[in-house]
């Protein structure tokens, strides 16, 4: 059984060597004097990390974002369950259709609840 994990182990070792090399090579090149040290504004800017933030990040967010995220999550989960069903639509037949319908119905009940409880209003 352990041999089965051997490939994964090899992969991990390769990953380790690769990431260490990425860190070590520039340092070694700099140490040998091959690469000149010329720091500048562009070089020290945030690299591939998204936009620079405007203002402080420790502000309070409107808690309605949380409602929306939660309501969206239900839909997300629904889609995850509907995908495999859609792939096997023909084989599953009427039984599958009923099951999927019930699943959608449950989510709809959730949305009716959220709607009536005014979770979808932005005030």
């Amino acid at each position, binding site marked *: 059984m352990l041999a089965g994990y051997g490939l994964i182990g090899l992969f991990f070792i390769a990953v380790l060597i690769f990431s260490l090399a990425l860190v070590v090579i520039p340092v070694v090149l700099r140490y040998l004097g091959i690469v000149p040290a010329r720091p500048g504004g562009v070089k020290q800017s945030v690299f591939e990390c998204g936009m620079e933030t405007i203002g402080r990040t420790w502000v309070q967010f409107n808690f309605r974002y949380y409602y929306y995220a939660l309501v969206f999550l239900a839909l997300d989960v629904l889609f995850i369950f509907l995908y495999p069903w859609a792939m096997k639509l023909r084989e599953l037949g009427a039984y599958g259709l009923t099951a999927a319908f019930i699943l959608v119905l*449950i989510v709809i*009940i959730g949305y*009716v*609840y959220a709607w*009536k*409880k005014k979770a979808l209003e932005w005030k």
Partner: protein
Amino acid sequence: MNPIIFNLEKLPDWFGVLPEIILLVFAALVIILDLFVSQKKILAAVSLIGIIASGALSLGFWGTELSFFNGLILTDSFAVFFKLLFLGVSFLIVLASEDYVNSFRRLQGEYYALLLLATTGMMLMAGAGDITTVYVSLELTGISLYALTGFLKDRKSTEAALKYLLLGAIASAVLLYGLALIFGITGKTGLGEIARAVQAQLSGSASVSPALFLGLVLLIAGFGFKIASIPFHMWVPDVYEGAPTTVTAFLSVASKAAGFAIIMRVITSVFAAPDWLARDWATVFAVLSVLTMTAANIVAIPQSNIKRMLGYSSIAQAGYLMVGLAALGSSPFPGALAGMSPAQSGVLFFLASYAFTNLGAFTAITIIAQKIGSDEIADYAGMGRRSPLLALALTFCLVSLIGIPPASGFMAKFYIFRAAVQADLLWLVIIAVINSVISAYYYLRVVKVMWLESPPSAEKVPSSALPTVSLAVSCLGVLALGTIPGLIMKLAEMVNQFMP
């Protein structure tokens, strides 16, 4: 290797979870009705109808040995016994909540719906045949209960809910780790398959692989949280005090019973063979039992809040129940673990008796607190004169918790201790009996305060109809189980577990 599981009667898979489906439909119905109906009393009625319908359907599975969804769900008399227990408890809780729920106006539909969802989760736990079902049903129960705990939305209730959520998440993680280890060792997820794999691996050897043993210990820790055994009890006092009293009753009875159901499904039957493995976990339960009983009984003595006191008392009761689990593991009867052992029927009887007793006590407290607005034991002074029947009912339930004859608590302890003596655990029984004597002190203190101290005011404590009915049913149950225990005991002896 894996025997194909035949459904004898070729039933469709969803048929096996019909009682749970019915309960879910009614939970959804309660939510929908709550949105469109202004008369909130109807919600309780709908919930009660759902519980009765689900109970009637569950009853139909008595004596069957079927598996559904490729062994994810099992139906056997063991599952039916627990399903009826959970449904009975939630029926009485819905009755008892009537006044209480009216007092919080908002979120009534959610209260009943979450109660039904938690019950559904517990029913699935009782019928789980696979570690995935075990975990999913455990979470369904857990999440519903976290929400119910925070229902009052005041400081204490919110604190209780948050504590319960965080500690519950940790317990879930520990449990998952245990399940993962056991899956890693055996390569199976079905409980029956795991049992066979463990047996095959261990037959002939005299020691268990450390990973399997660690998995087993982590399982006991995870489930120990559910049944609130020491040292996994840290959440109990705060949660019991902060949660709405009816939810506390539900937690202390149904949630604990569900914990024992799942322990008997996952630990005591799956790891039943070989003998020495059973003795290993029996020793763990025996040690936990001693710790739980002794510590909980001693800590309960100085409590001044009755909900906290009953919280520690319920921890102690879990200790007595674990005497039964220890007896189950070291039972001298060959094949006793497949069911039909005196220890298993003893645990089942104890759970039924404890359900009635604790529900009665908590219902009485709910009614009293509704009027006097306090859970302090000192405020119960003279309750015997202010409301004799209510005080009598509470006294009777407390007497049953001590284990004094006319009440069912005596018979429950008798059956479990007898099974333990038969399993050569006399030392454990002696410690348990000493603990029962210690517990008499703090239970009787409440009785003394109620009957011997003079009331601060002569004002009567009124109670409305439905909670009184619930209280009466609980007390009658306690009396019936105490005087004619054979009734339930016959049923409990017939209960056996099916492992495909």
